[in-house]
Every structure is written in structure tokens, then in C-alpha cells.
């Protein structure tokens, strides 16, 4: 679904509107200045340096051959600082850990300077510590830059603690609201079969029934 929202994959049915205009009526270049994505698929060339990779985020704004202007360089540096990876600048991507690479991909999306950033399961392949780090980073970025950051995740427990708004996708109906509202609405109670996992509204966490 996120890939469809990011105009990377064609939609199956329904309609998507961005800024009151259907997604398909946006030009490809116009959309690139509105929405940036971080996908689950690995990048094609791990031989890129971090700086080269983040610079590619400026493509929607550069000329026909992709020359970086002073403004582009400034935006790239801002992105590097926000994600705190300035010291990785000249490393090659194959030298990075999964967590570092994910940060670089987020920096690239920030450098693309869009109002909306979509991330497809940004925390997969990471351990608990790095999962929390990435999500805390995203929250900080959303609050400091006033960008909308939308991501999909299976990590409900961390999401409950860190997200501003959540949309729970279920087969029959999906509910949307802040984590507290959703807890009050008892939206999490029936998420999993009650004989295996139950939700503790007091602590906002799930419990495995032994």
C-alpha cells in the first residue's frame, strides 16, 4: 500500500489524492518534489558513497545533467546533520551496517525536501535498540522540520509509545487516531486472537498468554 501511495507501484483500486489533486494527475517530476520514499528493497549499487547517495535525493531540483548548486549542498548538509551521519559522508554503502544504511536512506529522503516522507517498514532487519533509535529519529525529524512522516510497521508496541497518530489496518475496518485515543477505543484488544496475545490497556503493551 505504501508503495502505491509513493507512486512506485500501480494501484489495485480506489483513488489517492495529494493536495486535492488525484495522484495520477501530478507530473512525475512534480510528485518527486512532494513525496519522498524509503523502501524495503536494497539499493542497486552498494558502491555509492553516502554523500553520492544523499546527493541523488536532490535530483528533482537539479538541471538536466544533475549539477549540484550551493543550495543543494546546503540541503544535503542539513540532512546529514539531522540524521547525525556527517562522519559517514565518504564511506561506501557496503561498509555500513543495516542501521547506518537505513539512516542514510532517511537522510536521502530528507534531502529530497518533500512535505511528505513515506517509509516502508523502516525497522526491519534491525535489533530492538536500533529500531527504537530509528523511530525516535523519525519523530524528532517530524517535529523539528514539520514534515509529515508516514511509515508502516509491525512493531505495534514501539509505535504506541512513539507515534503521534496511528492507523490500524485490519481486514474489516481500520481505525485511526492518536495511540491514547486508540487505547481508549479498545482498538488493540481484538487485534490478535485473545487466547494467544492480550492487550494490557494500563501499560499499553501486549502480553503473551502462556
Amino acid at each position: 500500500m505504501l508503495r502505491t501511495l509513493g507512486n512506485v507501484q500501480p494501484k489495485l483500486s480506489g483513488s489517492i489524492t495529494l493536495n486535492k489533486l488525484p495522484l495520477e494527475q501530478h507530473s512525475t517530476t512534480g510528485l518527486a518534489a512532494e513525496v519522498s520514499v524509503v523502501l524495503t528493497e536494497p539499493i542497486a549499487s552498494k558502491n555509492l558513497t553516502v554523500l553520492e547517495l544523499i546527493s541523488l535525493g536532490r535530483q528533482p531540483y537539479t538541471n538536466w545533467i544533475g549539477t549540484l548548486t550551493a543550495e543543494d549542498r546546503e540541503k544535503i548538509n542539513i540532512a546529514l546533520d539531522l540524521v547525525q551521519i556527517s562522519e559517514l559522508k565518504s564511506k561506501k554503502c557496503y561498509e555500513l551496517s543495516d542501521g547506518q544504511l537505513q539512516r542514510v536512506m532517511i537522510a536521502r529522503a530528507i534531502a529530497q525536501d518533500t512535505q511528505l516522507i513515506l517509509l516502508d517498514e523502516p525497522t526491519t532487519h534491525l535489533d530492538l535498540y536500533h529500531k527504537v533509535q530509528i523511530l525516535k529519529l523519525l519523530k524528532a525529524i517530524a517535529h523539528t522540520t514539520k514534515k509529515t512522516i508516514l511509515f508502516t510497521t509491525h512493531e505495534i508496541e514501539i509505535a504506541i509509545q512513539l507515534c503521534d497518530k496511528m492507523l490500524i489496518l485490519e481486514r474489516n475496518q481500520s481505525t485511526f487516531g492518536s495511540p491514547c485515543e486508540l487505547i481508549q477505543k479498545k482498538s488493540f484488544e481484538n487485534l490478535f486472537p485473545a487466547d494467544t496475545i492480550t492487550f494490557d490497556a494500563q501499560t499499553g503493551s501486549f502480553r503473551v498468554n502462556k
Partner: protein
Amino acid sequence: MVNISLGSVSIPLQETLKAIIGKATKVDSWSYIIWNYRIPKAFTAILVGSGLALSGLLMQTLFRNPLAGPFVLGISSGASLGAALLILGSSLFSGIFAFGMVNDISLALASSIGSFLVLLAVMVVAAKIKDTMALLIIGLMFGSITTAVVSVLSYFSTAEKLQQYVYWSFGSIGNLSWNQLLLLLMIIAIGILISIFSIKPLNALLLGESYAKSLGVNMNRSRYLIIIATGLLAGGVTALAGPIAFIGLGVPHLTRQIFNTTDHKILLPAVLIYGAILMLICDTIAQMPNSANVLPINAITSIIGAPVVIWLLLRKRKMIF
């Protein structure tokens, strides 16, 4: 220069320079040899080397595969098939081809069409199968089909035609006339021009197609432009100079190592230059200075190119592009 001065008839460097700038040489025939044989050949080597190297770079980026090259993906096989059908088939279907003599233009056209068809087939397969390994195997299969068709055709054709084909398949950059050279120059110039306009999409493709699309790249248009450029470069070169191995695969890797970058703004001119240099070196070796024999250039590029690729692999332990 060295390349021009060396050959069956050894001409001193000084005299070579004289001939090039239009002064009389000690021996009259030297000037003739240089202008009508050596210089066209050197130019051909430059064009062939840079054309193949660039087509290799385009394919490696487009297919996101370090093993891609005109040979591995069957593009050269396609060109061979086109050439074989024309040279060998002309004797078999003499009735149909009565009007079409085997001349340079038709040979170039046939091999270009052949390489384009294979490239299109590979693209169709690539769209269906995301697995790049499968793609490479399919490229190899195209190679096998070509070999098979060529064997069938050669069984039916005359010895003379067969010889013509075998010589073509050795790869030769020695017998192109100025007119053929001009044709090759035009084909390669168009290929380079399209590539220059594709630099931005090529760089975006380093992240993969989905990311490229999200960066505002019109993927359909860019993909076709890059394929057309590759087809022109690889097809044109193979058509006029025969199949020449490893330049297309090896030079982009060599260049990436030397410049330590993936930016096509730098890589594109760099592979053109390195392709040309490597081809000139290979050609100089192929001529076996001071002897009357000329080795098939295709063999030389393989002998030099394959160890280079192996060396790169051993040094890096993995092939990244």
C-alpha cells in the same frame, strides 16, 4: 602514435609524426601506409573501444548487474546471428536475397537488427523475471542459439561465405575504409549523445528503478533511450568490427576502481577514454610489431581482459558496481 608507428612495416615514430602532419617521409610508401591503413585502424580502435566500454557501462547500470556486458547478455550473439544470416544465408536463400549484396551497410544493418532484437527479448524477460541470474542464463542461451543457427547455416553455405563469416567473427579493426569509419563514428556519436542525456536517470538507477521513479525519472522513456543507445553502440561496433570480447565488461569495472566513483558524469567520459586506450593497446599487441602476422583482435582482448576482471574480483573479493 605508437599504435600507428608499429605494424608489419615498422615505421620510426619520427617519420610517423612527419606523415601525420603532412610532411614527406623518407620512404614514400610509409605515408601511404599511414594514411590509408594505420590511421583508419587507430581511429577504429578508438571508436570500437569507447563504444563497447560505454555500452557495457550502460548495461551494468540498467540491469543493476556487474556481470552485464554486450557479450554476457547475448547482444553480441544477436549481432553475430544477424551477420551470419546475411553472409551465410545469402548463399542459402540466394533467390530471396538476390538484390541484397553483402556489403558493409547491409552487414551493419543486419547485425544491428540482430543485437536490437536480442536486447528487446532480454528486456521483455527482465520485466517478467526480476532475478538477474536468470537473465544472465537467458543471455547465455541466446548465445547457444546463435552458435547452433550458425552451425546449421555454415553446413549449407559455400566455403567462401563461411570464410567471410569466420573472419568477421575473429573481430577485425584493420580493414575499415574511411567511409565505414564515418558510419561507425556517426552511430557511436548518436549513442554517446543519448547516453549524455541519460546521465541523470543513470545515476538515479544506481538506487534501483523504484527509487529512480520516486526521484521523478520517467522510467519508461529512460529505459528505452538507454536500450537504444546500448543497441547502437554494441550493435554498430560488432557489425563493423566483429564481435570483440571483454572491453564492454571489463572497462567499466576498471574505470570505477581507478576513479573510485559511481557518478556517471565522471564515468561516462572516463570509460570512453579507457576503452579507447585499452583497445589501442590490444590492437598494438595483436599486430605483433615487426612481424607480418596479425592476431585476431577478439582473442587478444579476451586474453588481456579476462585476467583484469579476475584480478579485480580477487582484490575486492566481491564484485560490486
